[in-house]
Every structure is written in C-alpha cells, then in structure tokens.
C-alpha cells in the first residue's frame, strides 16, 4: 500500500476513527489496533514476507531479554551476536547475495578462473533494511545497558512495525519510540492539524515535484549517450530534486501520519540542499540513518578518538557502509566513497562542526558567502547523485566526462524538454517555499498560520489541486527498494 494511493486514503481514516473512537483511552487496545493495522499495511505488499518481519521481531524480542538476563558478559555477547548474525544474515541473503556472487565470479574471471556461481531470483522484502536496523539498535542498546528490555510483546512489535515507518523509516530508536508507545495518548488538535499539513506537504513533494522530475531524469539518464553535457547536468539536477522530494516527501507523510495517532517520530530531513558544507548536508539528510551509523558504527570503531588517521578511516568506513546499505551495486559504494571524499577537508581541518546553526537564521536572504557555500555544496551533492542514479559505474563516468566537456556550453535539449518549463517554474516556487520555511520542522509548518482562514484554506486548496493535477499513476517511492 503506497502512501500516495487511494487504498491508503481509505485505510488511514478508518484506522484513525477506530483508534480515537473505538479504542479511545484504552492504551492496550490502541496498541493492538495499531499493530494489527501495521501488519495489514505490510501484508498488502506481499503477505509472505510477513513471516520474516514477525520472525525478526520475535528474534530481537527474545534475544533482547536474554542479553539483559545474562549475568555472564560472554553470554551477553553471544546473544548479541546471535541476533546480529541472524538479522544481517537475512539482509545478506535477500539483499546482497546476488551482488556478492556476481562480484566474486567477476573477480575470479580476472585471473582466468571461470565459476558457475548462480544468482538467485530473490525478491527484496520491502522495508527489510529499515526494520532490521530497528531491531539491531534495540539489541545493541540493551547490550550497552542503555535501555531495559521491553517485556510486552505487543508494544515491542509495534516499535518494530508501526506502519508509518515500517517500509522506509525514519529508523527509530527504542529510547525515543518505546516510551511513547507505553504512554497513554490523548487526542491533540494542534498536533493532528499539524500532522495533516505535513502529510499534504509530503504528498506535494512526492507527486508534484519528485514524480515530475523523475520523468525528465529518467529520459535523460536512460538515453545519456544522445545528450550533451548541459542536458546531462540538468538531468542530474532533476534527479537531485527527485530523490530529495521522493524520500523527504515519504518521511513527511510518515511523520504526519504518526502525529495523527499522537506519536512523534524522529525527524529525517532538515532542508539539506541549503547546507553550507557536506558535513552540514549529512547532518540534514536522512538524519535517522546518519545518526544510526554514527552511534552504532562510527563511535564503536573509535569515532574521532585515536588521531587523524583513525578519524579519516572511520569516516570512510561509515560512508562506504552507508552507500552499501542503499543497495547491492558498486554505484552506491562509489557514491558513499565520494561523499567521504567531499567531507574530508572539513574532517582534516576540523571544520565539520562550523555550520551547526540554520543558514541565514532570522534573515530573508543569505550573505554572498553563504550563497556560494550553498551552491558549492549543492553541486557536490549533484555530482555524487550521478553515481547513485547511474546504471553502473562506467555509465556514471560517461555522464561525468560529458558534463566536464565542451558540450556543457550548450542549451539543454531533450525529448519532452518543451514540457519541462512548468516543472522548472514549480521547482523555483518549491525552493522559495522551502527556504522560507527552513527554520521549521517542515516547509509549511508555520506558513499561513496567521493568515485569515479563507486565504489559508485557499493556499491548501492550491496544493491539493496541484497534487491532483500532477498525479498520474501511483509511483513507487525510491527508498522502498532499499
């Protein structure tokens, strides 16, 4: 069930009404309802993978209790590794088996050894990377004595499977979500209306911006051999907005939906394209994953302790692993490596925490320096996204070689370019709205709150008409494949 589908538009109000009217003020009933709805939501994709989700939940629930109850440190560690091993084992089989098999065969063929390693026709269970990371953070936190185990199986299952975050995050932490699941929740008018606004903005980002940019980005990337450097650069810019609006749009809908049920999820995006350097970009892009890797990989590896070389090594490791998390393809690994490379100057010169505040806070416009810093960071992000979007590494380099050729000095032209003008105008308007709302949780969080109701509603109607007008076939979200 897609967030941008009619099925979800029917599903959500039904769950909402049952939640606040039928199970009202009964926390246990509310949690059972949310869990049942979440399983139904997941089963709509493919009910067979429900077993995997339930198994993974039982595994972490049980090993979590075992870790906590073991007096012996070795035994604690054993239970931890059982959980990590099985979780990563599933991820490895479903997500990475074909990649390792074909890469291994390719590597052997370099030495003239022919192997007959067959790849498997495996379907990737939707959301596996996300719910596996939920479970891992839970057992690691237990092992590190940061939390106590959750004894209520329903509550724990809901922590793993809460439908707004189940298939594409945000990647939650037990310390943040479990206390909310265990606390009684009362209807909050402001929170609910805020949630609806966030859902609306998320749908706008996905349907109006991402899906339309996708049309042009796909045409340009799929036929890159026929296009000039300037067109390819424009294609990369379209993809840059596509992936941002697709994923952050999804996160907005997830956060907004959770708010309707009185639950606050972790923020996942904070206007990353207004970042002044790559370090700031990574504090604002897919925040729940970046912080996960920081807490469960970078810091255990030693973090910034142990001198400059250790810091550089650890930075490269988390970026490459993060790239690999996205998918079993060398393009994602190079994308991660490239981001590590881009962040290196701020690591080496210790400037990675220079831009912790919001750009041009309290001002309408950035300074000239800020403007150039934002432009530079955006351009670096665009270059890296080329690897993320390309079919393979060679394809990405072909695109880059054209972008850095003379053909960059030509007017971009591609099939359907005549129809791209309205989308370019929409992109400009979208960026203005995002800029104006950059100090909020999401761009239109505060926009129009002081306007008179007819004007405010007219603004929302315009957004709804745009969503309906530009909405064609229900398009999948990019991050579902991860």
């Amino acid at each position, binding site marked *: 069930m897609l967030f941008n589908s*009619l099925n979800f538009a029917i599903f959500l109000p039904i769950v909402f009404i049952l939640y*606040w009217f039928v199970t009202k003020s009964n926390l246990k009933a509310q949690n059972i309802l949310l869990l049942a709805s979440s399983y139904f939501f997941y089963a709509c994709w493919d009910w067979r993978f429900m077993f995997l989700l339930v198994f993974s939940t039982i595994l972490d629930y049980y090993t979590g209790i075992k870790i906590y109850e073991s007096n012996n440190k070795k035994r604690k560690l054993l239970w931890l590794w059982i959980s990590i091993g099985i979780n990563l084992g599933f991820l490895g089989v479903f997500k990475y088996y074909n990649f390792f098999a074909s890469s291994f065969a390719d590597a052997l063929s370099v030495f003239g050894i022919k192997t007959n390693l067959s790849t498997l026709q495996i379907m990737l269970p939707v959301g596996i990377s996300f719910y596996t990371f939920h479970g891992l953070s839970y057992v690691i936190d237990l092992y590190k004595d940061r939390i106590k185990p959750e004894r209520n199986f329903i509550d724990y299952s809901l922590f793993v499977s809460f439908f707004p975050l189940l298939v594409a995050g945000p990647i939650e932490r037990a310390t943040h979500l479990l206390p909310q699941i265990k606390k009684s929740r009362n*209807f909050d*008018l402001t929170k*609910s*209306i805020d949630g*609806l606004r966030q859902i609306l903005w998320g749908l706008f980002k996905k349907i109006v911006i991402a899906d339309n940019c996708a049309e042009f980005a796909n045409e340009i990337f799929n036929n890159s051999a026929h296009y000039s450097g300037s067109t390819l650069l424009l294609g990369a810019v379209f993809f840059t907005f596509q992936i941002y609006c697709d994923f952050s749009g999804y996160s907005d809908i997830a956060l907004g939906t959770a708010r309707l049920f009185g639950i606050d999820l972790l923020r996942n995006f904070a206007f990353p394209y207004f970042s002044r350097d790559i370090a700031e970009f990574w504090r604002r892009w897919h925040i729940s994953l970046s912080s996960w890797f920081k807490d469960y990989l970078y810091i255990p590896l030693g973090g910034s302790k142990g001198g400059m070389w250790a810091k550089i090594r650890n930075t490269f490791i988390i970026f490459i692993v993060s790239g690999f998390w996205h998918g079993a393809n060398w393009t994602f690994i190079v994308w991660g490596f490239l981001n590590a490379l881009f962040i290196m100057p701020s690591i080496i010169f210790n400037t990675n925490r220079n831009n912790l505040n919001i750009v041009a806070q309290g001002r309408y416009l950035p300074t000239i320096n800020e403007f150039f810093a934002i432009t530079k960071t955006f351009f670096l992000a665009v270059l890296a996204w080329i690897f993320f979007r390309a079919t393979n590494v060679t394809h990405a380099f072909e695109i880059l070689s054209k972008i850095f050729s003379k053909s960059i000095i030509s007017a971009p032209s591609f*099939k359907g370019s005549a129809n791209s003008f309205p989308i370019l105008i929409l992109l400009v308007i979208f960026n203005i709205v995002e800029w104006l709302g950059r100090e909020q949780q999401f761009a239109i969080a505060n926009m129009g709150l002081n306007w008179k109701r007819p004007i405010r*509603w007219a603004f*929302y*109607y315009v957004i*709804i008409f745009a969503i*309906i*007008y*530009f*909405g*064609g076939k229900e398009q999948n979200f990019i991050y579902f494949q991860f």
Partner: protein
Amino acid sequence: MKKFLLTITYFIIPLLVLFLFVEFKLRTINSEYEKKQKGLVEKSSEIEILILGNSRSDNGLNPTFFSKPAYNLAYGSQTILYDKQLVLKYLPILKKLKHVVLSLDYHSLSSGYLQERDFFYYHYFDINVKNKNFIKEKLSYFFYVYTPKISITLLKENKNVKMVNGWSGHDSSISSRLTERYGKERAQSFDLAINQSRKTKEYIEVQKEYEDLIRFLNENKITPIITTAPCNKPFTQFLDEKNIQYNLEFIQKMKRKYNLVYLNSLNDSAFNVSDFYNNDHLNKKGAEKYTKKIDSLIIKQ
C-alpha cells in the same frame, strides 16, 4: 476531536462539490466513440463497406469517397481484438455488409489489449474483451477513466467534432511533426513496443484473432480488405525491415488460406508530404487519395 472533525468536514465540502460537478461534466462530454456507435446503428441498414482498424484508417479512409455506402468504425489504437468484437456485435444488423477494411500496419500484430481504453468499448459498445467489472471506472471518470490532467484538458476543450459516416479527419499538416527527428522517435517507439510484445502470449493471440476474424468474414461471405496505410518517408526509412517482412509473410499466409484483398501503400510514391497530417497519419487530402485507391480495388472485385 469534534472541532477537528468539523474543520475537516468544512474543508472537504467544497472539494466534494467540485468533484461531483467535474464527474457530471465528464460523464456528459461529447464522445467520438458514442458518435461512431450511434451513427453505425442509424446507418446499419445501408452500410456495405465497414472500415475498422487503428488511427491510420480512422484518419485515412473517408467513407464518402467509396462508391458504395461505407462507414468508418476505426479508432485511435483500436486493435484487431476490438475489431473482431465489433464485427461479432454488429454483424446481425449490418444486413448489406459486403466488405470489411482491416488495418495491417507496422505495429498491428503486436497490439493487443488496451488497458486505458477498455472502458470506452465497454461503455459505448457493450464490449468487454477482458470481462472486467470496471467498478473503479464507474465510480470516478476523473481518476480512473481519464487522468486528472486529461480530464481538465477535456473539460477545457470539450470538442464537438463533426462526423460524417464515422469520419472527421484532419484539415492540414503539422509541419513540425513531419521531420526526420519525429519520424525516428516514432519508429523507435513502435520497435520498442513490438519487441516487448513479442515476449508475451498476447503476440500469438493477436495473430490468432486476426485469422479468426478473416475466417469468420469469409464464412459470412464478406470480403476482408487488408490495408497497410501510407506513411511519410522520414518515418518509414527508420522502420525495421525484419518487422515489415514479418507482416508480409503473415499476410501471404492468410492470402493462401482465405479469400482476401491486400493493398500495401506503406511506401506508395503517389503520396507526398502535403498528404500527411503527421508522419504516419494522412490528412483530408491524403485520405481522399487513399480511399479512392481502396475503392477502385473493391470495384475490381
């Protein structure tokens, strides 16, 4: 909670009213399918030549230039599967029918079911090729029969096309669409569709249906006239010779088995650029030439 529900209700009411209005307008819009169907029933007692097939026949065959009463029931993207159903449905009322013109264009053998147009055949002709229930479509034309974008365009234009014997045609040419660039793009899109279709079961089914229809017409003493419509050189030069040959072999096979007439005008030099509306469709001037050619074949018969 009460305030929340009231606010949501007040907010939704204008949207709902607008939606109902748009739905009503879309359901009463001028439809070419409807005009063709009504015209066919009206003229059924006199029709001797029935034109079926896709947009090339829809645009390229003007019934008024046939020497016998003719009717154009071809339509954009209409495939042989729908042609067959139309013949089966309307043959009982077409008492004088002698000839049926069928398309065998470059892509005809690879064109099967029309997901997005199925509903129109169901709604206007009572033909349901896939036995679908069309619940979604019946619920909302705005979302499921058309897309919101198309709906808005339709409501803005609401064209009332004048049709004579099921034909309207195009007056002139779109010069920008007669270029090699568009010709190449169009040929490539057909090749892509053909290659994809060849991997499906539907590909075999289309040929079987084609033969079934020819056999059925023969059994009812109706002569099938198979036509390959003329196209502009900037388009034809990019067509894959293998696909053209495949179609020719198919038609030769049909010719050996059944009584039929075939006219291949794909590269007919009698047609020049001024006869085309775009690279693969004739305009009114070209339609007159093309119709007369087919008519002379029928007269010879």
